[in-house]
């Protein structure tokens, strides 16, 4: 059994979980820890940091663009670990990244460094369940890292149950089968989310992709344990109306309404 900040969070809280995603090293290289600290202060429940990749297949234009700029800024796995090492945080942190950069870094070394810098979970969209289960599960567990899988409205019930069995953090339910942030409206996914809920899975469910407003957030939280906001947050920090800190703070309070 994995025991870390993420599993402790789920033991403590199971409703209205707010998860914010941002890209490491964006808008500027050194902004990673500024954003991380401000998000924590603003009271988000968990944070997902994207490791930029040159060819992000599952991401829409907003996150692609932020990844490109982050790479130009000099972001890399090593730089990110060094940044996280120097920043104290108590909020659960997940890293989201594509498989190739992790593989080149060395999977075990990567897992070890994650634990050292206070990372609790990983989302690697192009690491399929079968490969994870047969080759990497023991490594992730050795370093207390939860692995998070995605499900979509096209995922069969059997597949969802299989994914649940191998999940030790939460399940990331995509609200519509789509790359991140490309639809203009949060789809009314009630039926799908209720179906997920009715399966009585052991893992909490957070839903993401296309959540932009407090209304979307509340709608999602009615059905599942929480919501993930990515592209919209990136758009906010791309065009800050005030300082980066204030932009982060204002956005989070607009969602939480406190």
């Amino acid at each position, binding site marked *: 059994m994995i025991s870390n900040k993420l599993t402790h969070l789920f033991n403590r809280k199971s409703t209205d979980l707010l998860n914010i995603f941002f890209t490491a090293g964006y808008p500027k290289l050194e902004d990673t820890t500024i954003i991380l600290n401000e998000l924590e202060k603003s009271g988000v429940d968990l944070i997902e940091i994207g490791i930029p*990749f040159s060819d992000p297949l*599952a991401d829409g234009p907003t996150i692609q663009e932020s990844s490109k700029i982050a790479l130009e800024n000099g972001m890399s796995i090593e730089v990110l670990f060094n940044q996280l090492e120097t920043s104290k945080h108590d909020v659960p942190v997940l890293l989201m990244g594509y498989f190739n950069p992790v593989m*080149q870094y060395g999977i075990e070394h990567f897992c070890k460094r994650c634990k050292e810098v206070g990372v609790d979970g990983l989302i690697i969209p*192009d690491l399929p369940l079968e490969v994870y289960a047969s080759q990497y599960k023991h490594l992730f567990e050795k370093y207390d890292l939860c692995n998070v899988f995605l499900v979509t409205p*096209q995922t069969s019930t059997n597949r969802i149950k299989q994914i649940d069995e191998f999940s030790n953090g939460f399940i990331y339910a995509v609200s519509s*089968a*789509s790359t991140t942030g490309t639809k203009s409206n949060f789809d009314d996914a009630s039926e799908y989310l209720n179906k997920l809920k009715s399966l009585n899975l052991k893992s909490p469910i957070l839903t993401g992709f296309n959540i932009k407003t407090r209304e979307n957030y509340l709608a999602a939280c009615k059905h599942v344990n929480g919501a993930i906001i990515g592209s919209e947050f990136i758009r906010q920090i791309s065009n800050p109306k005030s300082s980066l800190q204030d932009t982060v703070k204002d956005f989070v309070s607009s969602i939480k309404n406190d």
Partner: protein
Amino acid sequence: MSKYQVNEQGFYGEFGGAFIPELLYPNIEELKENYLAIEKSESFQNEFQQLLKDYVGRPTPLFLAQRLSEKYGAEIWLKREDLCHTGAHKVNNTIGQILLAQRLGKKRIIAETGAGQHGVATATVCALKGLDCIVYMGEKDIERQAPNVARMKMLGATVKPATSGSKTLKDATNEAMRDWINNPEDTHYIIGSVVGPHPYPDMVARYQSVISQEIKNQMDGLPDYVIACVGGGSNAMGAFYHFLDDPSVKLVGVEAAGLGIHTDKTAATLNLGTPGVLHASRSIMMQDKDGQVIEPHSISAGLDYPGIGPAHAWLKVSERAQYMAVTDEDALKAAVECSRLEGIIPALETAHAFSVLKDLDLKSTDRVVINLSGRGDKDMNTYMNELNLK
């Protein structure tokens, strides 16, 4: 089963697999479950063979190139894929995949294209079958392959520019995959090469294997060499396929060296790359130390790709095939030579394959087959500029 064929897990040795986001799992499963049964079915085979014969114009000739033979002191045979309908081998695969897509009940077809040959071949079969067709093409390739863009449009396809990254084939592939993620139910993605997640590399190789099947039928005995250019590697895999288990046949793949393999403007993946995961399969790719994809360069849009099909990576590592690299400049010279000695203007991609004749240690008894994968009409702009033909 041959050690060079894909195994049940979708791997060629250590290469291949399906490193797909869960978002694509149902699509890939559907293909995996059905592609072999559909290919073996009588209805598929009847229609496939009939279209290859009456629509594509197969079998394509195997032509003894007398003047090239004299110059290089060996028997040089050309497999005339340039005579296929649409001007390249690409249509063998799109015919196969459109028949598969129809049998899976798909209504909408997407594709990526580099040189535009695969895009044209896809637009062609979509017109033939009355299916919607969207082709993703890098912005840079749209500029350098204008005639093919016009052909796709004339055939009724929508050409969407890929504006991210290097704005070439790899980025068009990313965009096509994103489209598929967003349209998982009614859409089939016709990948144009032996790349992408399992079962694509095997499926495309099977549809292209007609090339080597015909060479075997057309030749008296086995050739000593089979030579083909390699971007993703579909024409080479088609030309190698039925010779993989004939060890006396030397298989030679030719990559694009761009400005040279010691420069940073090159696309010689197997000569310079390292193992990694790109476009959902584990293969050899051009990447930096952080695992970020290096943007390739080749004068030919069809070879301008930082990865390669996993089967080729395995043929290289297991030393069944050798992979040479030819610069932009040498490819242009070879294109002129083939044009003037044989009266055939080859595609720029194909010209790379001709350029290694001078580097192989050929004996007078050697019989060499070059897969003449495409014709040069689409490259006339580049030829005019580079060779001062205006």
